[in-house]
């Protein structure tokens, strides 16, 4: 029967051309949206590599305050904040903190010559930020006071960056070059996905800032780990204590959890809109398919009557109608797969092939579900045709 259905659909290919095209386009739309969703879902499920809950961000902006003494003021503020009972630890960092939407791209190469330079995300962090972020290391150590007198400034790499720069060898103790400055690798972290939950994993290069370092400029961003349950009261305390020291400065306090939520919302809004457009298109395809099938059943009453006369059961007729639609869908799907398979083969958009294959499977399943859904009612109509009546009509 399957061969018969393929023969029938193939022989009606001209009449079915538009339906097959519709199926093909529906598959492409489902595949594109599916790829996007599978990509984001995969990223979302990948651990961030740091803890963001109970981490607060304090922005200190000196505004027009005199330059002299700004760093000392920041250090005093940090000491005061650290002394608050609700605060666990405090550290300075560059302003591209996780979920901030701010990036610092940098090229890092292996050795003094900077061989095999790789684009990475660069961060400046103080020693205490390990406690703030609770970054698990897979090798080596975090920054510490022992780095104060080091000949080369220390750096911590994420595993992917380490593997790219030093394949099949330990990165620990190796020299890396970044913007003509040499660093010595002291530790390797599993990952540090500061770009956000939906963004792809990418190499990260962490650089140490010593307490007296002015590399971050006078303006500072502080990150604090607070105790569970800390809320508005602590925020008020922090603001009061900060302004008591940094008179005339602007102080902004937020939490990484809030920034993460805002970033997710911002990223999901266009995705939601795209999914809505996709749903609209698919509904249109479904309505079109449903209408065409309904009309086809009415045009084929005599044929269906003959089939009943030849021994088809009502259920058999129903299955045949659904089967024909599935065959049509398969033709459209095969065309769609020809297009879709180019994406993983060409490595398009640097998206892992698994994402595309997942999207293909999901789009194919969706397309078949759509086809069956649209064919069910017309197939019931076809099954209900009285053969004696249908055969007399012509």
């Amino acid at each position: 029967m399957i061969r018969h259905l393929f023969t029938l659909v193939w022989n009606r290919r001209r009449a079915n051309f538009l339906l097959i095209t519709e199926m093909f386009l529906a598959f492409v739309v489902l595949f594109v949206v599916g790829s996007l969703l599978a990509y984001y879902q995969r990223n979302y499920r990948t651990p961030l590599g740091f803890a963001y809950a109970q981490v607060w961000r304090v922005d200190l902006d000196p505004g027009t305050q005199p330059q002299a003494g700004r760093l000392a003021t920041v250090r005093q503020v940090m000491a005061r904040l650290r002394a608050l009972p609700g605060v666990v630890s405090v550290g300075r960092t560059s302003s591209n903190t996780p979920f901030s939407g701010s990036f610092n791209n940098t090229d890092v190469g292996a050795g003094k010559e900077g061989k095999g330079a790789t684009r990475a995300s660069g961060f400046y962090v103080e020693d205490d930020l390990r406690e703030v972020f609770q970054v698990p290391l897979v090798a080596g150590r975090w920054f510490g006071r022992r780095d104060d007198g080091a000949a080369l400034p220390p750096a911590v790499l994420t595993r992917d960056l380490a593997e790219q720069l030093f394949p099949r060898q330990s990165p620990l103790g190796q020299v890396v070059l970044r913007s003509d400055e040499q660093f010595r690798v002291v530790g390797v972290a599993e990952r540090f996905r500061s770009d956000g939950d939906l963004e792809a994993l990418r190499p990260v290069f962490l650089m140490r800032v010593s307490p007296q370092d002015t590399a971050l400029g006078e303006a500072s961003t502080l990150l604090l780990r607070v105790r569970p349950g800390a809320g508005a009261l602590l925020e008020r305390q922090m603001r009061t204590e900060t302004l008591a020291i940094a008179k005339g400065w602007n102080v902004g306090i937020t939490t990484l959890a809030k920034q993460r939520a805002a970033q997710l919302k911002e990223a999901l809004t266009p995705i939601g809109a795209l999914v809505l457009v996709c749903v609209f298109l698919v509904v249109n395809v479904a309505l079109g398919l449903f209408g065409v099938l309904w009309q086809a059943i009415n045009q084929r009453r005599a044929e269906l009557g003959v089939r009943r006369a030849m021994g088809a059961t009502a259920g058999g007729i129903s299955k045949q109608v659904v089967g024909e639609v599935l065959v049509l869908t398969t033709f459209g799907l095969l065309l769609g797969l020809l297009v879709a398979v180019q994406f993983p083969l060409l490595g398009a958009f640097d998206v892992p092939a698994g994402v595309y294959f997942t999207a293909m499977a999901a789009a194919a399943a969706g397309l078949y579900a759509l086809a069956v859904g649209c064919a069910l009612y017309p197939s019931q109509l076809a099954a209900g045709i009285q053969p004696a009546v249908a055969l007399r009509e012509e």
Partner: protein
Amino acid sequence: MQTSAAPVLQLTDIEKIYQTKTIETVALHRINLTIGRGEFVSIMGPSGCGKSTLLSLMGLLDEPTHGTVAVDGRPVQSYSDKELAGLRNLKIGFVFQSYHLINDLAVLDNVELPLLYRPGLSGKDRRQRALAALDKVGLSARTNHFPSQLSGGQRQRVAIARALAGAPEIILADEPTGNLDSVMGEEIMDLLLGLNREHGTTIVMVTHDEQQALKTQRLIRLFDGSQVG
């Protein structure tokens, strides 16, 4: 080929009433009919007298309002849709005035159609049976043609081959020559007579043509839904 007294089809007290909200139409009234195995019976009557309705009831395509239809002595009114479909597939072949071939299928695929609904037959078996049926009607050379590429007589021969492919005991033919000119009509009639004579196939044929009806073994006349002769 001798006809046997054992009835292959038996219709007892058959009534068929079509009912709408406002009108009740009696299509068949108290029909009692027995078709013996190997008989060639023709049914005649004016348009609207119930010939096709009677054929539909014999072909198990419709149910009588009253009365019983028995195949091989067994009443079929309690049969499920699946059992009736199986019976139609195994025992009955249909030939229609307007052929009812599927235009998008080649001749061979059209002839294979009843075999598709017969479980246990391989694709090769189906092909062989269909080719044999086409050979019987003299259309072996047209297997890959489509119905639109054939003449009316050839199409009817394909329809007969389709009816024969399943080797049914009964062929029900509803005005098989109605759309054909006299020469082609004779050709088809000879084919049916040959099938009855040489293979013992029971044939019930609805016709308007008195000459053709007289060639059959028995003539049943209907008028206004009742059997008049």
